[in-house]
């Protein structure tokens, strides 16, 4: 059948056109397209792996942070406890010291009070002595104005001497 015999002309033109298309498209279309597709695929794969890496790093950082937080919390508790202890100690010390100081002040005050009381007592005694002497002097002067008085007095003294 005629349809099954290839024509030379069409064969020839197809050959030329196909070769031209092949050469031009190979250089200007297929090479850049295939190259870019390869590069893009590689780029996407790299981006994904980079993202995975960053994710892993992030989770590592997170766990580290958590560890640090726990540590910090522990340290805070310890510090608080220590601070409380120190505070209590300081209060006790202060109380003791205050007590000591107060006792000291009280004792000093008492000593001074005693001292002044003694001084006052001495003064009062002296005063009383002086007053008694003056009174006795006045009485004696009065008694001894008369001869009888003198005599009585003399006898009294003599009596005293005897007693002694």
């Amino acid at each position: 059948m005629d349809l099954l015999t290839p024509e030379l002309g069409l064969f020839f033109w197809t050959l030329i056109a196909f070769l031209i298309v092949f050469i031009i498209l190979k250089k200007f279309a297929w090479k850049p397209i295939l190259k870019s597709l390869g590069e893009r695929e590689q780029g996407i794969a790299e981006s994904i792996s980079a993202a995975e890496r960053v994710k892993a790093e992030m989770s590592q950082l997170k766990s580290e942070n958590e560890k640090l937080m726990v540590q910090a919390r522990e340290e805070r508790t310890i510090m608080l406890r220590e601070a409380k202890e120190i505070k209590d100690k300081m209060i006790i010390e202060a109380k003791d010291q205050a007590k000591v100081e107060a006792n000291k002040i009280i004792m000093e005050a008492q000593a001074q009070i005693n001292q002044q009381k003694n001084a006052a007592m001495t003064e009062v005694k002296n005063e009383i002595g002086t007053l008694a002497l003056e009174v006795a002097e006045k009485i004696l002067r009065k008694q001894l104005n008369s001869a009888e008085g003198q005599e009585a007095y003399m006898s009294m003294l003599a009596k005293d001497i005897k007693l002694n």
Partner: protein
Amino acid sequence: MSCKRFLSLLVLVFGLFWQANSSFAQTQENSPAGSPAAAPIAKEEEKSINITELVFGHVSDSHEWHFFSTTTAEGKENPFALPLPMIIYQSGKGLSVFLSNKFEEWHANEAAGIQVSNSYEGLHIEKGMKEKVIAEDGSAVYDFSITKNVLSMLIGVILLLWLMTAASKNYKYGAMNAPKGFQNFVEIIVIFIRDEVAKPNLGAKAVKFMPLLLTIFFFIWINNLLGLLPGGANFTGNIAVTAFLALVAFIVMLANSNKHFWSHLLNPPNVPFAVKIMLVIIEIMSLFIKPVALMIRLFANMLAGHIVILSVICIIFIFAGMSKVVGGVFVPISLAFSVFMFMLELLVAAIQAFIFTNLTAVFLGQAMEGDHSHDAHDKHAHDAHAHA
């Protein structure tokens, strides 16, 4: 922008021609009925010849691009056709170039069942199933004319070059630039060919053959699609074209075949001598059957598709010739069926391009199989031979 405008113009122009063509056929069916001289039997005969001519005129190559014809009041046909340049080489006369409208008067040669044109510069065209340029003095004629198929291919090639270079323009801005527009479409197909066709068959050598496979695929596909346009040429349904494409596949296959391939082909191991002779004969036959199968598969598929669509359209006129009522009733059925066929052919256009590309890759892969790096394949090949 200009692309869209051009395409829509193309579609519009071909669409108009198609409509004109159909209306022409309608009037032609009616005109004999109007003329009292025409006998009913002669009418029937004329009709069946017309339809065969119509179908084969569309599927075979031509020296002019015929769009439609009008019939004048005297019954004379007035064709609207684009004359194409004829390039004829004759060993004695050398090269002669002229337009095909030099051959415009046709008379039928009833005995041979062909149409014969007037002679020009000692040449005339005989139109049977296809057109042949014949020299009056009987010398050999080499016809390198820009025929309808060649012109259609040139349009396809220009479209392809323009589309692909436009799609690859964006790549100069760097690979990580997001693809856009038509580039997306091309990329999907390129990736499909690479991952589904090249890599499974060619493995590590896939990259080397990608340009060839892509060119074959897009060349066949765009020409298949152009052939589907109303008034389009049946380029990929022509055996010269598929023969050339199969030859390309065959040559590339032979050029890249390795020692392992030939040793298995000419000296299959672990086989008794008598069987070996038979096997070698079968293997050598299969070597040549491969490209022939490629050639015939594409040719037959595209040709059949065109013939079926045209036949379904022609059914309208056959029925209209019997009775106008039957013809009218059959119009929607025939149209629905031809729309269905057209959709199917759109699929077939892509599928045949894919199959041709895939089989090229498969044959290439077979020819390069069993390199020292592929022991698994080697074993597989042994098994296959054992089964054979």
